[in-house]
């Protein structure tokens, strides 16, 4: 039966080429636009550390003055150097890493290459194990290297390729900002998106090319970039290139692999705040937060508003395209009342007619969905041509591919329901008479 219905559907669609093309085009445009924006949204709101993000937490404490405090106020987004070091050295979590970002000039030994800047991450030993960074060669540094302010560096695969043609460069030296570093590891491709661990240096795709110990950076006064928030007489200090003690500028991430440990760590942060208050450093009552990766991204509203707006717009567009298709299909099916009347009179049941008409709308949906997929692919290509931070990530993955087809088919079958139902209500005798 299905084969016969399909044949009927194709004949009917061929009879009215312009109209069929219009319906297919409308569906394709609607599907294409909504899938393009939905894919961008999907990519941008993704999990940067699949499988791990639930165990990784971001502690916040509140070292500010009492002025401007009100209940429920969020603590600062980052930590001061003192608190960061204290929490790091307390080692109350399974793993912990303190970090900030910057830019360092690389001075290649090869005279063919001019010096150039690379984005850098200054962090501590657990960074690599905690975030599960894949190593191509070598490994990270250890906690003793942190304290020794070791001149050691882990570089990215891109930098390794640029400087050494992709060879194993572990053990070689690299000159950066006038200092000689020893390469201890080369990372494989690793670019978590969103760039969750430091949203102030760009929410998306700001892949660091060198990773070196935080204390080494402080010792060498390497350039630091990112957000610095100060209070009281902050911004001051003693002429140092590092922010003052009344400034927050560091991120701490900790790994806590079960709820008991999370509760214990939260308690530890409260105790720490009380202790610091007793010492006179903190003035406020303990005001702590402990969010995991996804909660942190959500709290910061990482997905750009524009992208959400575009997604809504595209769905509105899809709705208009579908209403358009419903109207056209209705007119088309009603016009065939005579033909349907004959079929009814010859003994076809209402259900059979209904099935036949749904097959016809399904064919339009399938073709429209395929067209929509092509449009979505070219739409994503256009998105990638824009050089905003997240643009390069916009690719269609298998799950979104499937979603496209399911959406297109559901949408058109849904759009076909009303016209098909209406057409089945025709009284066969009346149609035959009028003919």
């Amino acid at each position, binding site marked *: 039966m299905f084969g016969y219905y399909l044949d009927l559907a194709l004949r009917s669609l061929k009879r009215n080429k312009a109209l069929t093309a219009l319906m297919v085009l409308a569906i394709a445009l609607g599907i294409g636009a909504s899938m393009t924006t939905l894919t961008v949204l999907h990519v941008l709101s993704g999990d940067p550390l699949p499988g791990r993000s639930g165990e990784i937490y971001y502690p916040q404490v509140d070292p500010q003055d009492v002025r*401007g405090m009100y209940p429920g106020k969020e603590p600062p987004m980052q930590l001061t150097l003192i608190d960061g070091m204290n929490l790091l050295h307390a080692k109350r979590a399974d793993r912990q890493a303190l970090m900030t970002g910057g830019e360092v000039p690389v001075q290649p030994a090869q005279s063919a290459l001019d010096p150039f800047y690379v984005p850098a991450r200054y962090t501590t030993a657990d960074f690599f194990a905690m975030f599960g960074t894949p190593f191509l060669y070598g490994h990270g540094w250890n906690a003793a290297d942190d304290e020794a302010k070791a001149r050691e560096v882990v570089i990215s695969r891109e930098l390794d390729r640029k400087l050494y043609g992709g060879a194993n460069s572990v053990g070689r030296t690299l000159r950066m900002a006038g200092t000689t570093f020893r390469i201890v590891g080369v990372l494989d491709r690793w670019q978590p998106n969103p760039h969750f661990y430091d949203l102030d240096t760009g929410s998306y795709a700001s892949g660091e090319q060198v990773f070196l110990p935080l204390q080494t950076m402080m010792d060498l006064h390497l350039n630091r970039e990112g957000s610095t928030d100060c209070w009281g007489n902050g*911004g*001051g200090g*003693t*002429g140092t290139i590092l922010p003052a003690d009344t400034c927050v500028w560091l991120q701490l991430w900790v790994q806590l692999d079960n709820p008991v440990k999370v509760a214990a760590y939260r308690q530890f942060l409260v105790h720490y705040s009380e202790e610091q208050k007793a010492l006179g450093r903190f003035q406020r009552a303990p005001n702590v937060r402990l969010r995991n990766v996804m909660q942190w991204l959500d709290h910061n509203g990482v997905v750009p508003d524009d992208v959400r707006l575009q997604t809504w717009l595209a769905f509105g567009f899809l709705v208009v395209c579908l209403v*358009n298709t419903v109207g056209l299909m209705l007119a088309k099916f009603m016009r065939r009342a005579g033909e349907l009347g004959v079929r009814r009179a010859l003994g076809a049941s209402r259900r059979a007619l209904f099935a036949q008409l749904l097959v016809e709308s399904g064919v339009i949906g399938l073709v429209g969905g395929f067209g929509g997929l092509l449009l979505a692919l070219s739409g994503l290509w256009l998105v990638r041509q824009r050089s905003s931070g997240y643009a390069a990530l916009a690719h269609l993955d298998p799950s979104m591919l499937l979603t496209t087809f399911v959406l297109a088919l559901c949408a058109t079958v849904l759009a076909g329901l009303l016209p098909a139902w209406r057409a089945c209500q025709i009284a066969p005798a009346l149609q035959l008479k009028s003919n």
Partner: protein
Amino acid sequence: MKLHPILAALRKHKAGTVLIALQIALTLAIVCNAVFIIGQRIQRVHRPTGLDEGNLFLVSQQWVGAPSADSADGVEKLDAMQREDLAALRQLPDVVSVAPINSVPLLNSSWTGSVSLKPGAEIGDKTGTRTAYYFTDEQVFPALGLKLVAGRAFNAGDVQHQGFRDNRPRPVAIITKALADKLYPKGHAVGQVMYSDGSSAPTTIVGVVERMQIPSSSSFGSSFVWNSTLIPTRLDANFARYAVRTRPGQLDAVMHAVTPLLYKVNPLRVLDDDSVRPFSDIRAKAYRADVGMAVLMGVICLILIAVTAAGIVGLTSFWVGQRHKQIGVRRALGARKVDILHYFQIENLLIAGAGVVLGVLLALGLNLWLMSHYEMTRIPLPYVLAGVLAMLAIGQAAVFVPARRASNVPPVEATRSV
């Protein structure tokens, strides 16, 4: 012409009529809001920063192995290096002026704080006003092409220097008119004092600049876009930025000369492809997302209107085909061609009229929803009215071809049986 027969006929095509009206309503709602968003973005992208943008470029560079700014000695050495660069740049032919500056409008790298009329106020304190600081020297007015509207510009005696993170007292400042109006609404800011960043040392306002945007172009800065404060201080660190203004038409030539010149002054530094950027580049980067959004909205609007118009053409064509015989009867009974044409036009006007009434409500509702979820203001009535007229016009244009085909049905059709 009487409306009664048209309404009676439409009652026979309820579903089709409702769908077309609904489609017009949705299209109107989406297009109105989208065009409003486009208008807002275009306005945002085209607002002038207050600078002479066409002849301006920015040099950002970093020294390698520079002395540390930790010690007073290091700060002096860094300052000497910076002055050396400035002197060399000012010697270049076709350069109007050069000023050291920590950032420029739209660069999205900013030093923000607050100024207050009370000493010791804090950021976030209600008495303070948010502002972005530009640390520069006495050349800033000619270098950026700023316009002074009251008081005086900086002179060489005002200029200090300090380590990048030092917190020196700021004895004098020049502020924008927007900020001056906020601090001193009666308009006599020049000669008055203010307190910056919670300091208890007073800062005297020596001049007021007409307009100067802050570096941030994101929503973070949207509440204080025009509140800039100029401080006559060179910041010393292992990196520096210089704003260079050239004679008209000489921008490219001067930009090409900069990199070799600076390497000649001091080879121990890093300048890469992004180090020398014309202001137009900075502006384009800052507003790239806005432009992209406006283009996307525009394209979607056009396609949406095209789809709706095509839908009207398609549906009306069907109706014309369906009523072929009835049209023939009417013609045989004496209706003129133009009567048939008018019939379909009025029918479309009725459907579109119902659609736009619903569409206006939807558009306002959508606007309210957008206002509650996104940064958005109330849609002005002219936008909605223009949308209504446009939709009605599109409906009429779309119906014309099928209606004319209907009017060409010959009266003899009435006598033919199918």
